[in-house]
């Protein structure tokens, strides 16, 4: 079995804030294989943005690495120098951000921006320009020549996101990180973008780390899923296992609460009561205990480790330890 | 039924609250090193201005020809000018002139600007447009040019200087007061007051004004150095206070004429202006930092 493309191993990141040390990522471990699409599911505040920033090594000044490693194509990204990271950003690892309206420079034309990100290539300007046109056509933007001379505010959200995809895939990266690319778009656009991503994935064969809180999209697009809560990985496994055989109370509640999953008509949509805990306070026990309806005594005293609970399936919950797999 | 606003107890509590607010602000300013320097400089300035008549070592106005154009010495700390007057005494006296112009000008402008701004913000649209147009027109004149035009028409004197300096400052306060009034106009507590039938005067005077005054005070602190500089500038050009009244500007004027004979007059005129304007600016900047976030917190 070949080594995974991306292996995240026990990564813990703190932020030094005025209120104290905020533990944004707690012992994160999962991996992404070559050509695979892995989804990350979690509500706001679960640490997704910090995770992306950590992989790219673009954390703010007050972030502190506590432990763990991120292995990408054999190198530990955390130990890499800034120059080595910069060589990889936009070439081996690309990102599509959540807010297409804000993610592109408003006063520079699309064309100029698309040429700029090809800054490593020594080809002449005309070639870079042509490549930009080709990429735009590939994502379905008509009249690409004219479009390149326009500014971001002249495009709709859906088109901007397609441009962002074009930019991200321009260098044929090994890993594409998509940070909630469809959250800011309406449902019909979402379907379109997902379809396009699927086609492009088939064509280019890159790995994708797809972050979303839309379970339906995750189910359709991804092969494996990571469930994150308040900076920790609570469950990780194949799509089938996670959706049909969830082994963590949070995952179970998430699936129950997903509007697409609800079978019966009800007056009110189910929610998970409570809020994520204050991450500046020291934690004793499981991170989900306050909102969990199935806690046992052990949940309050020790944090459950991520253990195998089936074929291609890991979960971090004490409940699973009462019934060890045979 | 007792009106909570006029009820004596509430009044006392409110004025206590205002006092402690004030002290808190002063404390906040003093904690900042720049603010502290500003407070000290302004304190010295005000002290000199108020007690100038008593602390001057020599008569700043009387002529003493036999002692003219001396350099610094133990009798005359900064030397004498072309009429034998002690430069140091004139320097101290100049602070009084500066204050005499700055205070009425700034407070007059603040009062008028505040009133007009509140009317513009609270009143009907046509009145707002009219007043805003007036503000913008005054602002479209380069300040000194405007001052010179007025002085040309009316003739130089202390009153003219005060009037001109005040007129150029009014739009600054007016615009800010207008913006604040517009913002507060639809806030909840104003609507509540209106629904209780509070009179226009009460709304503007008792409820809106205290909120706006904070912001305007910061503006005033930043405006005072401009005003002092304008007065000094006009006096330097010979278009300000009439001699023999010693203004820092007139010290500069004499110093300029005698620049090759003695450098001390220019130093005596220029240095206090720089130090005082620095002091007020530091104070104003720190005040703004202290007042601004607090204003937001209180909302």
């Amino acid at each position, binding site marked *: 079995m070949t080594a995974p493309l991306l292996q995240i191993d026990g990564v813990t990141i703190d932020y030094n804030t005025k209120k104290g040390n905020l533990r944004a990522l707690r012992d994160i471990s999962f991996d992404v294989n070559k050509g695979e699409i892995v989804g990350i599911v979690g509500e706001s505040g679960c640490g997704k943005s910090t995770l992306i920033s950590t992989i790219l090594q673009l954390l703010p000044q007050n972030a502190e690495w506590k432990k763990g490693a991120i292995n990408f194509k054999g190198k530990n990204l955390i130990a890499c120098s800034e120059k080595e990271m910069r060589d990889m950003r936009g070439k081996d690892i690309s990102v599509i951000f959540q807010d297409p309206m804000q993610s592109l420079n408003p006063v520079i034309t699309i064309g100029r921006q698309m040429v700029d990100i090809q800054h490593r290539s020594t080809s002449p300007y005309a070639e870079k320009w042509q490549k930009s046109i080709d990429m735009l056509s590939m994502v379905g933007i008509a009249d690409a020549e004219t479009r390149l001379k326009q500014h971001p505010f002249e495009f709709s959200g859906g088109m901007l996101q397609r441009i962002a995809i074009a930019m991200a895939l321009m260098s044929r990266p090994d890993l594409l990180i998509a940070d909630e690319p469809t959250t800011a778009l309406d449902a019909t656009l979402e379907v379109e973008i997902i379809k396009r991503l699927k086609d492009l994935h088939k064509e280019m064969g890159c790995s994708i780390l797809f972050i979303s809180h839309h379970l339906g999209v995750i189910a359709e697009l991804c092969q494996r899923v990571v469930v994150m809560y308040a900076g920790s990985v609570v469950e990780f496994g194949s799509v089938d296992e996670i959706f049909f055989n969830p082994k963590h109370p949070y995952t179970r509640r998430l699936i129950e609460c997903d509007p697409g999953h609800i079978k019966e008509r009800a007056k009110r949509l189910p929610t998970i009561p409570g809020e994520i805990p204050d991450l500046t306070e020291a934690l004793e026990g499981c991170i989900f205990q306050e909102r969990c309806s199935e806690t046992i005594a052990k949940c309050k005293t020790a944090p459950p480790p991520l253990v195998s609970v089936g074929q291609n399936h890991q979960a971090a919950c004490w409940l699973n330890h009462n019934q060890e797999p045979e | 039924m007792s009106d909570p606003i006029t009820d004596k107890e509430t009044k006392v509590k409110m004025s206590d609250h205002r006092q402690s607010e004030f002290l808190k602000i002063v404390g906040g300013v003093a904690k900042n090193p720049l603010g502290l320097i500003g407070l000290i400089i302004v304190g010295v300035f005000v002290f000199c201005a108020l007690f100038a008549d008593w602390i001057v070592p020599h008569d700043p106005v009387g002529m003493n020809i036999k002692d003219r154009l001396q350099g610094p010495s133990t009798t005359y700390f900064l030397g004498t000018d072309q009429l034998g007057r002690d430069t140091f005494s004139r320097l101290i006296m100049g602070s009084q002139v500066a204050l005499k112009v700055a205070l009425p000008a700034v407070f007059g402008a603040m009062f008028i600007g505040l009133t007009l701004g509140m009317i513009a913000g609270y009143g009907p649209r046509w009145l707002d447009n009219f007043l805003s147009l007036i503000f913008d027109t005054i602002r479209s*004149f380069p300040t000194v040019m405007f001052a010179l035009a007025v002085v040309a028409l009316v003739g130089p004197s202390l009153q003219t200087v005060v009037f001109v300096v005040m007129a150029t400052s009014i739009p600054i306060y007016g615009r800010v007061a207008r913006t604040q009034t517009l913002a507060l106009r639809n806030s909840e507590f104003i609507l509540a007051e209106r629904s209780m039938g509070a009179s226009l005067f009460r709304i503007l005077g008792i409820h809106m004004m205290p909120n706006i005054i904070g912001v305007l005070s910061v503006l005033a602190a930043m405006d005072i150095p401009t005003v002092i500089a304008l007065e000094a500038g006009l006096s330097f050009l010979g278009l300000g206070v009439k001699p023999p009244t010693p203004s820092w500007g007139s010290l500069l004027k004499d110093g300029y004429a005698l620049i090759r004979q003695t450098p001390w007059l220019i130093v005596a005129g220029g240095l206090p202006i720089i130090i005082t304007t620095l002091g007020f600016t530091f104070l104003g900047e720190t005040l703004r930092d202290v007042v601004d976030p607090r204003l937001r917190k209180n909302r």
Partner: protein
Amino acid sequence: MIKYMIRRLALAALILFVAVTAMFLMIRAVPGDPVQIMLGPRATPELQASLTAALGLDQPIWKQLVIFYSKMMQGDLGVDVFSGRSVTQIVMQQLPYTLELIFASIIWSALLGVIFGAYAAANPNTFWDRMIAFVSVSFIAAPAFVIALLSLLVFAVQLRWFPAIGVGEGFWSRLHHVVLPAFAIGLSWVGYIARLVRASMLEVLGEHHIRTARAFGLAERRIIMVYALRIAILPVITVIGVGMGFLLSAAVFAEIVFARPGLGKLVIDSITTRNYPVVMGAVLVSTGLFVLSTAISDIVNAWLDPRSRQSL
């Protein structure tokens, strides 16, 4: 873009119209015979009579206003009391010197201000950042004409590094003569612009598109200078346009202190000799300059930032 330009210039014309009316009313508002005021006590009865007729002062006020405007539109700002020369001609002769001084002041102070501000923003909360902040506030506070006098004293009279008087002839001499006055005028601007650029840059550097640029591995220098600065500079342009008023005021003093020809010296001399038409003409021209510069800076702003073309 063209449409925006036209609309903006129309607005400028409107403001100027109102300002001129205000000037007109101001003259009328002063107690006394306006002709006496305009010509001053040195006027002869013949001059008074001819001016009264020319201004149509026997006519109703609104008609006077119309005459005033029509003359202005034709470029006629009246005549000099002593020489009879056209005021317009006199003012236009002096204007280039003032413009030269203002231009020189803006160039060096904007350049230095942007450099300091960008550096401070790229290295926030370091010693140098705090130093720049302190120096900026100090520069902003000190009045230009005092700086002018002190630098005259120290650099021209005492040290003799620079000439104390005049404008100079020939490029290098003119440059030599303009250094001290431009320094005095520009000093407070360095502080002002540095602070503005710092704040503006910090805001831009926090925006999402900068994050994207970093995520694509663009060099930090390019990000700061091309991507961030281009947006951060916009407020500076607006500020310079609005600051023209301050610059004109400061230039008046600088011209007096360094005995340079220009609008400032013209106005002061005319006030002393009670040559009121020249005073009014110079004030009107400088106001027009101010209004025009705010309009131009808005237009340049719109050119650089396509987003702002939508407003107005």
